[in-house]
């Protein structure tokens, strides 16, 4: 089960509201490489992981991503706090505003609602962990791009933290592949899928 901790993993305190930044940062909440998809990817893949290190790692990184969802949502919430209709118009936020007012919704920067089609659960150790490596790289690039677009130091402080976590997760998933390989057929790791085939 899960229990809520009434605090963030990293402090978020954005002095200057700025809805224009929220328009694209929302993508790391419910976008194609965002934190919602990340947490569901890992928390769903873990059921077909045959080895304890992999079960533990996918659980722990999946839970951390839930905390990152909260960080990104907090950034969006604080950037749009107390905004007026004039500020909505100036930021070009009308399409979002008309559907969600100042609520925080899981969507891409482009406006597409979050979709489970952004991630896979293949039920195969090497395939799923290879997807996870790619997922961490794509999230890292999205944070790079946010840093290119944002000049708010309070926002960027949090984004730099989140970006570095993607680097750490990439490293751990890479190590997880090696730990899996050590337990598989050394002459042909694709001989069977240890999550399904009984050998």
């Amino acid at each position, binding site marked *: 089960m899960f229990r809520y901790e*009434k605090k963030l993993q990293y402090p978020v305190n954005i002095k200057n509201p700025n809805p224009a930044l929220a328009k694209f940062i929302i993508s790391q909440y419910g976008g194609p490489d965002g934190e919602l998809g990340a947490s569901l990817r890992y928390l769903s893949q873990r059921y077909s992981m045959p080895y304890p290190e992999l079960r533990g790692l996918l659980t722990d990184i999946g839970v951390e991503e839930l905390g990152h969802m909260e960080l990104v949502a907090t950034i969006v919430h604080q950037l749009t706090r107390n905004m007026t209709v004039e500020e909505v118009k100036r930021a070009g936020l009308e399409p979002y505003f008309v559907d969600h007012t100042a609520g925080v919704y899981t969507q891409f920067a482009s406006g597409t609602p979050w979709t489970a089609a952004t991630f896979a659960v293949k039920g195969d150790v090497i395939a799923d962990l290879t997807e996870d490596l790619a997922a961490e790289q794509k999230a890292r690039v999205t944070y790079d791009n946010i*840093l290119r677009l944002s000049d708010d130091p309070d926002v960027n402080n949090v984004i730099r933290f989140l970006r570095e976590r993607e680097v*750490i997760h990439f*490293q*751990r998933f890479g190590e997880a592949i090696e730990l899996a390989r050590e337990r598989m057929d050394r002459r042909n790791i694709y001989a069977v899928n240890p999550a399904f085939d009984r050998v």
Partner: protein
Amino acid sequence: MHENQHHHPAPDFTPEHRTGILPSDAPLAVPFVPFQRDNPPQYSPEDGLPRGTIFPGLDLPWQNTVNRSQPAAGTPLGEIMALEFALYDLALYLDTHQHDTHAIEMAEHYMSLLHTARKHYVEQHGPLSHDEAIRDGKYTWLQDPWPWEYQERRG
């Protein structure tokens, strides 16, 4: 450049702290990431939290720009965040390095500091979890602030 960031690559701790180990019998057609060596150098929890990792060898910032500090540094909640973060980064490390006794000792040390810090925090500022949320016969869970709210100075 803002006071809260600076341009700075990760410092050198040991010659090999930025390199890992590849298997000697690496077969074809499998992705490989070098394995992080056991007992790697670590930042303190206070230095690790703003950088997003306690491991200097994995500290690879965009444009070499890193956070000098985190916004809650020096506050009671900032201390708890730093300790819990160090423990979480260590937990992911231990998931793939479960026999590293030095990392286990560090985790035990941080757990003991965290236990004390949380106890003091909850007494003065309110609950962080439901099992800390009843105090003197009162339900304290609902008291402000919630974590996502903007605070002039949080902690």
